[in-house]
């Protein structure tokens, strides 16, 4: 193993282990409603960051495919969507478990929850579109187009629409949150490494998936 190439994998693993251990051990500010469940910040939020990074990588490769028609780019685009969907589902699940104890219901008709689920539907539709087309070049091209078309919609769903309705999420609609006055330096010491670590792990998973898919394709040719 060459350390100059894989330092970020080691770093990612160390950061994730660190944030998991300290996520449970470190002291947290005592806030009403949230109490100890505030620790979910270290596990729930990084999932969404990792998902958005992976979907952005996918769009990048889709654009590349439309420009050069290289099948490798298509393969990378679909594998990063696959990895991103795993993180999206984990984000929904960690959120639902947390909501079960904090809001009383796993699915509480919260705007962010609803729109995150719809954003995932977009990417399921992308995968189904891929399955519907047999011809490889055609599949790559059409799904790349849909991927690029869907991306701004995902951005609208996740970043614009939740702003116009009151969310139950901490920090929205007068709920106590992790913003400026709450997210004290102790929490930042765990939260930022957690985000960075999970993004690196997500990227690692995606590179592995892409390499496996490439090898399988070589085998069938």
């Amino acid at each position, binding site marked *: 193993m060459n350390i100059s190439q894989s330092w970020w994998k080691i770093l990612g693993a160390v950061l994730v282990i660190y944030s998991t251990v300290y996520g449970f051990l470190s002291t947290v500010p005592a806030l009403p409603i949230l109490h100890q469940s505030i620790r979910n910040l270290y596990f729930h939020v990084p999932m969404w960051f990792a998902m958005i990074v992976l979907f952005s990588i996918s769009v990048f490769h889709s654009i590349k495919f*439309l420009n050069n028609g290289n099948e490798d780019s298509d393969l990378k685009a679909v594998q990063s969507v696959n990895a991103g969907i795993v993180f999206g589902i984990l984000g929904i699940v960690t959120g639902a478990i947390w909501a079960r104890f904090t809001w009383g219901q796993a699915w509480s008709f919260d705007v962010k929850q609803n*729109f995150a689920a*719809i*954003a995932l*539907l*977009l990417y399921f*539709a992308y995968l*189904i*579109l891929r399955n*519907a*087309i047999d011809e490889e070049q*055609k599949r790559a*091209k*059409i799904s790349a*187009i*849909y991927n*690029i*078309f*869907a991306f*701004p*919609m995902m951005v*609208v*769903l996740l970043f*614009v*629409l939740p702003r*116009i*309705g009151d969310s139950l999420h901490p920090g929205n609609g007068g709920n106590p949150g992790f913003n400026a006055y709450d997210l004290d330096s102790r929490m930042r010491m765990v939260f930022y490494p957690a985000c960075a670590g999970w993004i690196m792990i997500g990227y690692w998973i995606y590179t592995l998936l892409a390499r496996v898919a490439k090898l399988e394709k070589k085998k069938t040719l």
Partner: protein
Amino acid sequence: MQLIKEVKFLIGKELLLEWRSKYALNGVVLYVVSTIFVCFLSFVSLSGVTWNALFWIIMLFASINAVSKSFLQESKGRQLYIYTIASPLALIISKTIYNVLLMLLLTLIALAFYTLVFDYVPQDMLLYIIATILGSISFSMIFTMVSAIASKAGNGGMLMSILSFPVIIPVITVLIKLSKNAIDGLDRSVSLDEIGILLTINVLVAAFSLLLFPYLWKD
């Protein structure tokens, strides 16, 4: 200016074809009217939130039916012919404009019939009409592009709804919020946010359609 000439010609072609068969408009109007009537017979009386939600659900399905035929219906041969005589930009612009016109007509007919049958008028009718106009523009722009994608995938109706529903849901939630404001007769300045978001989504969709369609169109 070649582009404008081509767009004008293609819209003229669509209108002429429509005028000859009168199939699309009559068919979709009949579809909407009978759906509204079925809803009337099953609900008998409606008002407020349910009235609003039902209207948008009816319009959603009517517009999918109306717009999806724009690309799905055309034969391979005719597509190839258009490919040789017009630029892809002219084609997508003309199809979108034609669909916007069709949807505007359809929504206004539907709204008139809907208010007539249920005998319920929103407090701020003008704002409600603005919402339906914005809605029909966004519906037709999104569905035109998605129907182009679905027709290239060669797998008609089902793919069309799977691909377009997640894209249309954000639009429909904003629309329902906006038209709810109109029903409650809130001050119009409250609704400016929603109108802004709808316009932004429309601009985004238009920009991405124009960028992406040329790639889709050449086989």
